């Protein structure tokens, strides 16, 4: 290949020097990325490789479907609850189990808690260091930082010069001790960092505040899930018992506990609105000239939708997070999405390390096959165990290539916000309009790395507010005398039909998540997960369409090829999580992003 045009509208040229980043750091799981840059240091070809093999499906085969949630929530340490929820929904769909209204409300609150928490943690702890330079923060003037803080967020109480001076001293001590901890492995002299020292100090201070605050949010999940850090779930509802007049110390849900939930929700809304959103806007002001990274977002986006307002109604009308698909950038038409239709969602493997009987065809997840086949192309540089340059013309990733009606799609907060905006969702449109106006940028600015990062922040605010809505709903429902939390009528497998299949879906923080299950004689016959990072991190397909990560990296100018700040910035904006999209392969303990330029 020298130059080729992909059917989905991108031009690839692999003639320039090759930059390899392996592993990509500050993500969950293992991922490798290779790009070619031209003489002007602009990325002209991008190759994303999931370096772990995914084996979840095969260990669920033959297990009790009522246990599947427990296995799926142990895959990794990030969206545990989302997998569990998706799993119980898939089993309920298969067995036609309706859940009580309270169960739906409590599940929504738990899912919204996870979204709020995950977005906040992602922004500060996994992504901020792509924009914020903690070493520069040491040079900041605490008085000027205090003024900046009061300007960008007048209601946040922690804003005195003394406060910032303390943080700066603490940071200094930390840096001088040589234990950089989370700040190690930075490219702190790279000119890609654009914030002045005061903005850096403010952001690093909030990094620490967010670390402290995030621990509170998850307590909501503990109250409803009964257990932390792995809450309990139940096919047919939720395992919590509601006894509103019950004593304070009991494990059931009583008024005292609901008041505690209320207080945490209010604190969360406050933190997001006084810290996260102002930080986002402050950072964006300095980077709004850096609008790389849009990739597929201006073309093809997909969302299954989530947060059903009414129990057991998973139609687009009931889902508060929007559902639909946009193709070829036509925002005037949002297509309906059907997860059961064998012709809509299909997974392809011509560039994935799996074997299908006929690799020209895609398979719907109900008929999905997960048969590993590790083969490398003829243009590989290196050996099987020490790959220097992957050959993307052949199989090159442990991630399959999912397609919606043949299209590569981006999923995640930006996809949801573009779809919500196209559908005229009132809250989403209001939020987006305000941000675009504040930053004085056009709608097209959304289709960027920064736009993806902004959509995540706005969704965090949306999710925190929605928790409040559902808590009100729960209290009203319980006060009206409804305390049911579970429907156990179909608990006994002897009541099940011999063969059934179902699908469960959620919007995980990082995008659309689906579990497809087939149950035969009370046991799992086939279980397939199509996870968000499978969509976004997808390799090429038969037609040569590239996936969202690869598309987003194209045409980005990098300051220094040997310091992949821009590559990490764009990849992190997707909040990749490869633990469930692939499985462990990386053989050693390299923690730094290792970069090779050749």
């Amino acid at each position: 290949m020298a130059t080729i045009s992909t059917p989905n509208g991108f031009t690839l040229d692999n003639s320039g020097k090759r930059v390899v980043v392996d592993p990509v750091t500050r993500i969950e799981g293992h991922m490798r990325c290779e790009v070619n840059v031209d003489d002007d240091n602009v990325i002209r070809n991008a190759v994303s490789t999931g370096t772990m093999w995914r084996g979840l499906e095969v260990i669920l085969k033959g297990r009790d479907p009522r246990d599947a949630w427990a296995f799926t929530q142990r895959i990794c340490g990030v969206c545990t609850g989302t997998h569990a929820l998706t799993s119980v929904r898939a089993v309920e769909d298969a067995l036609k189990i309706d859940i009580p209204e309270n169960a739906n409300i409590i599940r929504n609150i738990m899912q919204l808690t996870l979204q709020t928490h995950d977005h906040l943690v992602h922004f500060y702890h996994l992504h901020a260091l792509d924009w914020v330079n903690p070493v520069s923060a040491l040079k900041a003037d605490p008085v000027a930082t205090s003024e900046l803080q009061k300007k960008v967020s007048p209601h946040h109480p922690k804003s005195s010069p003394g406060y910032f001076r303390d943080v700066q001293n603490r940071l200094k001590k930390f840096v001088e001790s040589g234990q950089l901890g989370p700040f190690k492995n930075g490219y702190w002299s790279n000119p890609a960092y654009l914030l002045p020292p005061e903005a850096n100090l403010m952001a690093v201070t909030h990094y620490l505040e967010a670390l402290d605050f995030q621990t509170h949010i998850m307590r909501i999940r503990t109250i409803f899930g009964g257990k932390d850090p792995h809450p309990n779930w139940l096919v047919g509802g939720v395992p919590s018992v509601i006894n509103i007049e019950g004593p304070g110390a009991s494990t059931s849900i009583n008024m005292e506990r609901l008041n505690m939930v209320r207080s945490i929700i209010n604190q969360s809304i406050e933190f997001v609105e006084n810290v996260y959103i102002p930080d986002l806007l402050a950072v964006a002001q300095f980077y709004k000239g850096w609008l790389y990274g849009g990739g597929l977002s201006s073309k093809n986006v997909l969302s299954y939708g989530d947060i059903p307002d009414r129990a057991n109604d998973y139609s687009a009308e009931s889902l508060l997070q929007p559902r639909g698909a946009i193709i070829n950038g036509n925002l005037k038409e949002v297509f309906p999405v059907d997860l059961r239709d064998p012709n809509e969602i299909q997974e392809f493997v011509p560039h994935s390390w799996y074997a299908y009987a006929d690799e020209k065809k895609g398979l719907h997840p109900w008929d999905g096959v997960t048969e590993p086949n590790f083969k490398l192309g003829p243009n590989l540089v290196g050996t099987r165990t020490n790959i220097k340059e992957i050959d993307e013309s052949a199989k090159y990733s442990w991630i399959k290539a999912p397609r919606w009606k043949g299209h590569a799609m981006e999923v995640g907060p930006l996809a949801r916000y573009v779809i919500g905006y196209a559908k005229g969702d009132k809250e989403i449109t209001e939020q987006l309009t305000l941000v675009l106006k504040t930053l004085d940028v056009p709608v097209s600015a959304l289709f960027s790395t920064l736009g993806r990062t902004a959509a995540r922040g706005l969704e965090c605010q949306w999710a925190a507010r929605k928790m409040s809505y559902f808590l009100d709903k729960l209290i009203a429902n319980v006060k009206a005398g409804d305390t049911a939390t579970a429907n156990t009528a179909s608990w006994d497998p002897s009541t099940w039909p011999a063969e059934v299949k179902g699908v469960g879906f959620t919007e995980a923080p990082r995008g659309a998540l689906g579990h497809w299950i087939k149950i035969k004689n009370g046991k799992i016959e086939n279980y397939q997960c199509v996870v968000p990072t499978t969509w976004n991190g997808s390799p090429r397909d038969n037609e040569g369409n590239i996936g969202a990560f690869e598309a987003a990296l194209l045409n980005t100018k990098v300051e220094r090829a040997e310091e992949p700040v821009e590559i990490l910035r764009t990849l992190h904006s997707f909040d990749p999580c490869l633990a469930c999209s692939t499985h462990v392969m990386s053989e050693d303990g390299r923690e730094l992003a290792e970069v090779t330029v050749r």
Partner: protein
Amino acid sequence: MRQSTRVLVLGIGNLLWADEGFGVRAVEALNRDYAFPDNVRLLDGGTQGLYLLDHITSTDILVVFDAVDYGLPPATLKLAENEDVPQFLGAKKMSLHQTGFQEVLATANLLGKLPEHLFLIGVQPVELEDYGGSLRDEVKAQIPAAIDHALACLARFGIDAQRRETPLPEAETIACERMVLSRYEDERPDEEDACRVGDDRVLAMAATRVAAEREGQR
């Protein structure tokens, strides 16, 4: 030792990866066999990273059970204390959660809230490459010794555990009741139905090793 000293005994690891589940199974067994005063909490930390920060920053003494790779003979117990713990965990990354936990400790340090006393009770795994599998017998056999070490650590601070007259039933596990050891092991489908090797088919070298072993068995 003052009455208000807070103690956390934490088991971490991934139950789905054979000996990687050691930490969780150890804390589960400790809770089954012993009762503790109110200031001692036992927790199944699973594969969680930052979610554990809340627990770690609100304790004075932290005891961690985990599977760690120190290049020792398989199933050997390895103990570490205080400043040796994070560096020890960093010896080699083997699993998804481990970097996570090291980072949690670094983060707790950054917040100035590291526990005063840190103990690690680790085991060198026999087998990790068995997705969906359980602890190997040799590793399982180390659980009582690991528990004795934990009790000895706590005894140094005057904390006494009471051995339960009757061990707690499996249904009252502090880990996952859908994945209690007997259910997890007994309901595992056989190899014909559910592939197990996972990584062995991935790493070319490992694949070669498996092929050689299979050859040897014939």
